[in-house]
């Protein structure tokens, strides 16, 4: 029996290959992502392990806050602790470290180097003079020897920046800082460095100064991020830490071992990657899900075509069980082979992903791909299980074929559409129910996912019921426009509604996601646009080129305020903090002037008089928490740790989601955060001054601060739209895989169908159908199926979009927009893709030898 299975596979190579491709692509994507992740993880693990190799203990402040992106803001410590640590028995050497949060090199054209638009940081550090505590190494660059920075005004630059900016040792370079007193300065390059094996770790640019110089440019004299210590011979890390702990008595100081530090750094790097990995894996799973539809479809068609053969087997004494195992055996072999090929292809994909990362400015220095046994096991298991499960239903159908059917002429389609309607409707309703419960009853994202999944299945089950009427309607214009080939195309598209529906369902999934993303992006743009209109009452705004989140020196706001014609320049800063035990964001600006440029309405209390230990709270939160004016609320900030702030005012925030529910004054902000930088500067002009008349003067100021951009409200909207479009582009690129697999499915179905219709095509050719007309008929059949799947997908996608937007109404999705133009474009693309998918089957059908075709069994 199993030999028969294998023979069947060999005899139908094409069918086998097409089924396999669907599995291969999905598995390749999964294994490629896993290999890439493991490789990057190992790279970073090794990198941190090697650069902190000489660090046995690390002394730092215990006051720390993490923001939503996993970046931590930690209070600095005094450099007066260094002698204390050095004096500890067992410490061979100890030295202070300081990171300059922003030290952006400026190229010869005056533009900042590094890619703030991608969020890659531009760091500065002090040069550690103790070699074993120094993660950086000097390299010889263009024949010139590097030396460490020894005096103020000297800098060592990372090799990638030296290459990119065409700098050489001995050249002068301008560096821009987030420092109010020292927004930028000139330095002499005395050396070029690497970080472990990396020219530019994780895309960050690196400037290295003497410690005193680092403190000066950062505006933090006498302060350190931490102190690293190397142990003397015979003292292990734990002993060293304990001795330092005993010796250093300052408050809010913590001592950890070097290996703990390495682990922390490694897990930070992994967290940064995990978002990316999860993102890729989700698309890989979508691709596999789509692929499973194709497997179901192929097996179903093949079994329908083999009905007589299988019935003959049954007549000759094979049991239903044996027939079922034969089909499942075929699935197993296909799944296993395809998964194996997929894993191999995944290795290539991992290399490709590294290229993509590099294109985004993130250098992943990998020599060898890390292929864990787990990757093999997971990928193979996924591929085999998906194929096997997808073949279960067709196998059951095959086992039910009665021996008598060997004697019947043609397989007739069973019609259980009534039952199907009920089942499909129930699944779809349950899915929608789960979706809404998840969204509106806050029952969790898992329920939302389950609901979406069930809706897909429900619609796929219902597909055959609606395939005939919808397909007919879609092809209604064809007989008139394309004559007899058009009629045949339409009739062929709907002659087997199950087949049409399950082929279309594969496309539906990818397109539903595309439609969903289009609706979400359109709604997001409209919502944010509306918020900007409502929130921003000033004339101009300055923001970082990286969008909200990137920041610049507070010196810029002061200088803009001094430009003639500018009435006021209002900075806006953001920072992570904890309030009443929960992590959140606080914003800071000048309370007295906030009204002038931002649509912000103080409600109760004295907003304008907000002091350094006061906080203003939005009405919404104020009421929710039943706070009263004068209440002292416990908060935690990076600098100073736990402390009480007094609620002295409330404000109406409404739907201005660009802002936070908590507001403090600039003075309050500056003493609670280690680094002070503006995210926005809102500019209001004197009455009667036009934007155009002051723009050149303001632009001239901003020119001094690389990375900052001047925008009008409309410009701000377009910046945000550009960012949304970028994300949209990335998502589409990934969804392309799912859509591509679905198109393979259409091609597969068409190929199997035309083989099934060989005699029919032969007859048509005999009575005078031209090859061109045959191609036209196949092509239009494909277009109908593709457009049918696309319309199903778009309806679902818009529905998903609508439910999510409605659920997030309170979180800032004020507008629900269905971008008709873009959705129409999707349909047009689907039709073109249908033409593409039909190309090979159409060609094949038109090339059938007429005589062979009419005499086929």
């Amino acid at each position, binding site marked *: 029996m199993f030999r028969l299975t294998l023979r069947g596979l060999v005899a139908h190579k094409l069918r086998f290959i097409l089924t396999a491709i669907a599995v291969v692509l999905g598995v390749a994507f999964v294994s490629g992502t896993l290999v890439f992740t493991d490789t990057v993880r190992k790279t970073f693990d090794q990198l941190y392990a090697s650069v902190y190799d000489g660090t046995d203990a690390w002394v730092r402040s215990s006051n720390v806050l993490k923001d939503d992106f996993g970046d931590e803001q930690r209070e600095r410590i005094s450099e007066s602790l260094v002698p204390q640590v050095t004096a500890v028995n067992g410490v061979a050497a100890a030295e202070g470290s300081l990171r300059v949060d922003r030290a952006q090199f400026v190229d010869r054209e005056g533009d900042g180097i590094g890619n703030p638009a991608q969020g890659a940081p531009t760091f500065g550090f002090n040069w550690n003079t103790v070699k074993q505590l120094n993660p950086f190494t000097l390299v010889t660059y263009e024949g010139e020897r590097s030396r460490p920075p020894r005096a103020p005004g000297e800098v060592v630059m990372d090799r990638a920046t030296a290459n990119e900016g065409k700098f050489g040792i001995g050249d002068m370079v301008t560096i821009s800082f987030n420092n109010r007193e020292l927004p930028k300065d000139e330095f002499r390059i005395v050396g070029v460095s690497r970080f472990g094996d990396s020219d530019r770790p994780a895309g960050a640019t690196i400037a290295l100064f003497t410690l005193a110089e680092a403190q000066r440019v950062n505006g933090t004299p006498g302060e350190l991020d931490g102190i690293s210590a190397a142990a003397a011979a015979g003292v292990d890390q734990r002993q060293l830490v304990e001795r330092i702990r005993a010796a250093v008595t300052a408050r809010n100081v913590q001592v950890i071992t070097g290996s703990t530090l390495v682990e922390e750094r490694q897990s930070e790097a992994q967290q940064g990657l995990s978002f990316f990995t999860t993102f890729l894996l989700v698309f890989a799973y979508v691709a596999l899900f789509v692929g499973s539809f194709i497997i179901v479809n192929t097996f179903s068609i093949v079994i329908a075509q083999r009905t007589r053969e299988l019935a003959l087997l049954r007549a000759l004494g094979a049991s239903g069980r044996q027939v079922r195992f034969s089909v499942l055996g075929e699935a197993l072999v296909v799944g296993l082979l395809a998964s194996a090929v997929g894993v191999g292809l995944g290795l290539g994909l991992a290399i490709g992903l590294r290229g993509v990362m590099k294109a985004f400015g993130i250098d992943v220095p990998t020599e060898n791909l890390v292929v864990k046994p787990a990757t093999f096991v997971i990928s193979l298991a996924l591929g085999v299980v998906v194929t096997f499960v997808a073949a279960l239903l067709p196998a059951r159908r095959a086992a039910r074929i009665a021996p008598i059917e060997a004697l019947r002429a043609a397989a007739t389609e069973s019609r259980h559409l009534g039952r199907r309607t009920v089942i499909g409707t129930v699944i779809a309703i349950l899915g929608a129910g789960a979706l809404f419960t998840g969204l509106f009853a806050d029952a969790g994202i898992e329920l939302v996912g389950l609901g979406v999944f069930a809706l897909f299945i429900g619609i796929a089950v219902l597909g055959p019921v609606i395939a005939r009427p919808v397909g007919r309607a879609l092809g209604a214009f064809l007989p008139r426009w394309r004559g*007899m080939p058009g009629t045949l195309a339409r009739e*062929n598209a709907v002659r087997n509604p199950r087949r049409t529906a399950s082929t279309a369902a594969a496309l539906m999934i990818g397109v539903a996601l595309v439609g969903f993303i289009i609706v979400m992006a359109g709604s997001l743009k409209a919502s944010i646009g509306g918020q900007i209109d409502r929130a921003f009452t000033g004339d101009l705004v300055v923001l970082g080129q990286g969008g909200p989140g990137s920041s610049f020196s507070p010196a810029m706001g002061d200088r803009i305020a001094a430009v003639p014609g500018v009435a006021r320049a209002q900075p806006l800063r953001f920072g992570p903090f904890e309030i009443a035990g929960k992590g959140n964001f606080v914003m800071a600006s000048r309370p007295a002037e906030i009204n002038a440029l931002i649509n912000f309405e103080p409600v109760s209390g004295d907003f304008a008089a907000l002091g350094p230990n006061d906080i203003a709270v939005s009405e919404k939160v104020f009421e929710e928490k039943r706070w009263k004016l004068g209440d002292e609320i416990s908060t935690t900030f990076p600098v100073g740790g736990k402390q009480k702030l007094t609620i002295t005012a409330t404000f109406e925030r409404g739907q201005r989601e660009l802002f936070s529910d908590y507001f403090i004054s600039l003075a309050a902000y500056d003493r609670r955060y280690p680094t002070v930088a503006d995210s926005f500067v809102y500019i209001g002009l004197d009455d009667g001054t036009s934007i155009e008349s002051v723009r050149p003067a303001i632009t001239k100021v901003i020119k001094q601060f690389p990375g900052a951009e001047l925008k009008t409200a409309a410009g701000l909207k377009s910046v945000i739209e550009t960012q949304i479009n970028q994300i949209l582009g990335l998502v589409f690129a990934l969804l392309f895989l799912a859509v591509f697999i679905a198109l393979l499915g259409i091609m597969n179905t068409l190929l199997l169908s035309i083989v099934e219709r060989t005699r029919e095509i032969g007859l048509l050719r005999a009575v*005078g159908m*031209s090859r061109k*007309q045959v191609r036209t008929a196949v092509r239009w059949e494909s277009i109908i199926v593709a457009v049918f799947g696309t319309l199903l997908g778009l309806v679902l996608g818009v529905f998903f979009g609508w439910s999510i937007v409605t659920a997030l109404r309170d979180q800032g999705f004020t507008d629900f927009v269905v971008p008709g133009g873009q959705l129409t474009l999707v349909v047009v693309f689907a039709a073109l893709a249908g033409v593409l998918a039909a190309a090979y089957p159409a060609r094949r059908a038109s090339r059938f030898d007429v005589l062979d075709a009419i005499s086929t069994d």
Partner: protein
Amino acid sequence: MSMPAAVARPETVAARAVNASKVYGEGEAEVRALDHISVDFASHQFTAIMGPSGSGKSTLLHCLAGLDRVTEGQVFIGDVDISASNEKQLTLIRRDRIGFVFQSFNLIPTLNASENITLPMALAGRKPDPAWMDSIVATLRIGDRLTHRPSELSGGQQQRVAVARALVSRPDLIFADEPTGNLDSRASAEILNFMRAAVDDLGQTIVMVTHDPSAASYADRVVFLADGTIVDEMLEPTADRVLDRLKQFGG
């Protein structure tokens, strides 16, 4: 019934094979299905081609109909040398000048009877002459079946629809490949009677391959093939004479 084409017309040749050979394979495995055959098929005549299995009768029909190519010699439909025609020209000749009736699977399952009848004309982008269509449909008694799909028709009805399709575009000649091979004797007689009438009353030309002597007896002329050559022919055949002649082959 209006039958404008029924009057006697001058005797012309509808199809002709000249020294035609068809060879499959090479060397040892060479099979000569047609061996230098020359034969004419007159217009307005009903000709039957007979012969034992492997005699080449189907190959001859296929080559004459432009479904297959001869390896040597020439084949003419009217004055056109179809052995020199390309695939495109052959398609047009089949569509516009030839009608087909096959043994089985004559109809497109997704089209109803009426659409199947007009299929070749629809492929050409032409409309059938309504009066002609009506008269064919009436003669074949399929008027009440026109909106039915093939799966809803009996075998005999399906073959009548196929005959109607072969006739509707008034082709130069109709090729029928065992048209009654799958039918019972009553349905067979109906079809053969109608084909006879198509020649007598409608002035059509039919070339039919059959191995059934009684089917051959409806023809004006029977051509006997054996081993790829024409071994005999018979005018005004009867079933008994054909049967006697056939017995001489097998021995």
